[in-house]
């Protein structure tokens, strides 16, 4: 291996040596200097457009963007001086000049990178008064709201959409002062190839992208004495909700979350994990059926609604491969309005089902025609993101950190560890294998943890030996990674038996509705995702029941209500259909 050349340079008078190719920004980081930045994101391509990260390089005659300039031998860099600070402040002031002055009423108030930059650079008044761009808010979408007046044209949304998700729905349209980030033709989000994953919301430094807010609908239901209001929480919420209340990332907060939701006034708090266990039982049955007949393999998991949208828009030809199972959230909602309604003797129309999800695409999913009980009654009434749930708890005045731990409600609150790990990449696959291994061999298996399918790097392939049978499995998160697998499937280059796809990086723990990172973590930070995933694996390990089919609540459900696994009633209630959606995406 050829050795990478070391470059010697000086930063702020300190001599350092870094490998060739290192940027000034990265070199400064090695000696503890954090150069301010806005458009830069470590996991996305370089844009170098905001100029906030400028530094003075001796003899260059002009400031250089430190994010996109590589170091050279003998370089002398000054990251701070009165002149540089003034120049940075001017740049930030110019960005602010073209920005609405509504910080106090803005959703990102206190968590806005532009606001933070203005504060840390001492912008205390606005000196440049000029023309301001004017755009209407685009809130026709069911999940993502676009407010172009707040856009600073950093291009992070464009890059995450194209580079991480492989969707490329956004680009800068027009030029100069009139430039605006939109889908093709300035179309509304729901009329575009948008898959509703919400990563644009996550990476946006301001509030130019936000999830559609449904807290008002939920407050209204909670205040309606005629409504029986039920909430369910996705597996990944317990791993991330604590971050909104000052807990270290990766702190499991299941009990406090349940208590807080109960205090908000929900009549029952159920666990989407039970829906996950049910999904596994149905899905592994479906998988073993296909395996036996050797048809429609590989089977694709179908829990992630962003992924389902992607499949329908970008790879419609592969739709038959998708598992027909509804997502865990939908399965649980169906049970709430049928099984639970019957048990409690409440009419389904009097039940309001709210779901706390890590996901913006879930907001879209519940309004799909397939997910309605009758044309008037949706199975799920409202989806809240983790962020919205945190906000509601704070708004109510609940002191989350001091809450006692409480348990989910019966009968839809018991879940195995297999359900918990659904919230992280590889979790659905591992849960499927835990159940499928026993069904395939017909006897209890010792192996419980399938660590070889945990796709921390975004893509993982493995061959799993179960009895005499070898299963070829693959796991992807981030749809650009999924594309690589799907292209291999399309071209019949490689045989897989089952593929798990989660739309967001890291799976649901990195979903478009998860808390904005705090402290030294950045959005999409692999270290942050690892901590959240660890929380789920810790919960899984702490449980005595870790295989979905061993869940006593599930067994009871089949015995008294659903009938046979994969039977007629189970199919009618727990399965769904997919069809190509337009506009078709360009792969």
């Amino acid at each position: 291996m050829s050795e990478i050349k070391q470059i010697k340079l000086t930063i702020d008078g300190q001599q350092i040596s870094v490998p060739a190719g290192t940027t000034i920004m990265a070199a400064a980081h090695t000696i503890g200097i954090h150069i301010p930045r806005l458009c830069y994101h470590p996991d996305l391509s370089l844009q170098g457009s905001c100029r906030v990260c400028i530094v003075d390089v001796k003899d260059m005659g002009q400031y250089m963007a430190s994010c996109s300039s590589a170091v050279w031998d003998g370089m002398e860099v000054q990251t701070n001086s009165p002149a540089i600070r003034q120049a940075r402040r001017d740049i930030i002031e110019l960005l602010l000049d073209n920005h609405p002055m509504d910080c106090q009423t803005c959703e990102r108030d206190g968590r806005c990178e532009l606001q933070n930059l203005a504060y840390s650079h001492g912008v205390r008044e606005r000196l440049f008064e000029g023309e301001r761009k004017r755009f209407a808010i685009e809130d026709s979408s069911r999940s993502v709201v676009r407010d172009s007046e707040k856009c600073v044209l950093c291009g992070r949304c464009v890059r995450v959409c194209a580079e991480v998700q492989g969707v490329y729905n956004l680009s800068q349209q027009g030029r100069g002062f009139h430039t605006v980030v939109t889908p093709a033709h300035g179309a509304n989000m729901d009329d575009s190839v948008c898959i509703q994953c919400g990563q644009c919301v996550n990476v946006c430094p301001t509030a130019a992208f936000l999830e559609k807010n449904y807290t008002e609908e939920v407050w209204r239901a909670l205040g309606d004495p005629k409504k029986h209001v039920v909430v369910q929480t996705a597996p990944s919420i317990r791993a991330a909700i604590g971050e909104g209340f000052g807990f270290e990332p990766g702190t499991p907060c299941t009990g406090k979350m349940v208590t807080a939701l109960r205090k908000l006034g929900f009549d029952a708090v159920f666990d989407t994990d039970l829906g996950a266990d049910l999904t596994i039982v149905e899905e592994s049955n479906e998988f073993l059926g296909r395996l036996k007949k050797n048809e429609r393999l590989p089977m694709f998991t179908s829990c992630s609604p962003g992924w389902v949208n992607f499949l329908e828009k970008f790879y419609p030809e592969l739709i038959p491969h998708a598992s027909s199972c509804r997502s865990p959230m939908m399965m649980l909602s169906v049970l709430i309005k049928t099984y639970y309604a019957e048990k409690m003797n409440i009419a389904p129309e009097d039940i309001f089902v709210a779901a706390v999800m890590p996901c913006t695409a879930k907001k879209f999913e519940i309004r799909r025609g397939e997910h309605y009980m009758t044309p008037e009654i949706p199975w799920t009434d409202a989806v809240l993101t983790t962020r919205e749930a945190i906000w509601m708890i704070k708004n109510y005045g609940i002191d989350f950190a001091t809450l006692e731990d409480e348990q989910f409600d019966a009968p839809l609150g018991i879940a195995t560890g297999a359900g918990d790990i659904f919230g992280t990449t590889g979790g659905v696959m591992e849960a499927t294998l835990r159940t499928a291994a026993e069904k395939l061999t017909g006897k209890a298996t010792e192996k419980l943890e399938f660590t070889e399918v945990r796709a921390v790097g975004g893509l993982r392939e493995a061959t799993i030996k179960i009895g005499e049978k070898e299963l070829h499995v693959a796991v992807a998160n981030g749809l650009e990674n999924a594309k690589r697998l799907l292209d291999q499937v399309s071209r019949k280059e490689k045989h897989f038996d089952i593929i798990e796809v989660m739309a967001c990086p890291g799976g649901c723990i990195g979903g478009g509705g998860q808390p904005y990172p705090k402290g030294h973590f950045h959005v999409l930070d692999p270290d942050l995702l690892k901590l959240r995933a660890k929380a789920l694996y810790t919960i899984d390990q702490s449980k005595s029941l870790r295989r979905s089919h061993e869940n006593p609540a599930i067994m009871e459900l089949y015995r008294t209500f659903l009938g046979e696994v994969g039977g007629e009633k189970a199919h009618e209630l727990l399965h769904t259909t997919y069809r190509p959606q337009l506009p078709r995406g360009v792969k």
Partner: protein
Amino acid sequence: MSHTDQPCCTDNWPQIKAKSEAALPRAIVEYIEQCRAKEHAESQLISVLHKLQGTVGYIGKEQIDAVAQLLGVPAAKVSGVATFYHFFSLEERGKFLISVCLGTACYVKGAQQVLEKFKEELGIESGETTKDGMFSLQVSRCLGTCGLAPVVMINEEVHAKVAPDNVAALLKMCQDKA
């Protein structure tokens, strides 16, 4: 529809392809096919749009979507490129495109008055098209023929040393051609 009624063929590419081809002139479809036969077809995007504008006169939404599908470039990118360059027109233009150069040399030689005269004669603003679809008026920057200033281009033809008094004659000439 129950889950067992999955359509047997969910591939909509044949329909998308046919629709895209119908939205473009045959020559453009063939040109895109040539591009796709080589590596890095996506790098030919601007060239395709150039040819499209040359043939059709403008680049509409349908054409943007068609180019995206056939060339294999995301529609957001095609739309982004088409809206970025001043040269590309997103709306149907008149039979005669009048570009009045307002570059420095033309400007000091009185091009602004020439432009005003065109506006007056045609009853439209710069960037607009006459109702009969005959004329579109636009402003251009330096055309590189400063020695002939003020310069007006009508379609591919360059007209030198244009004065406001010549405007009516130029328009008449076009009408005679049409």
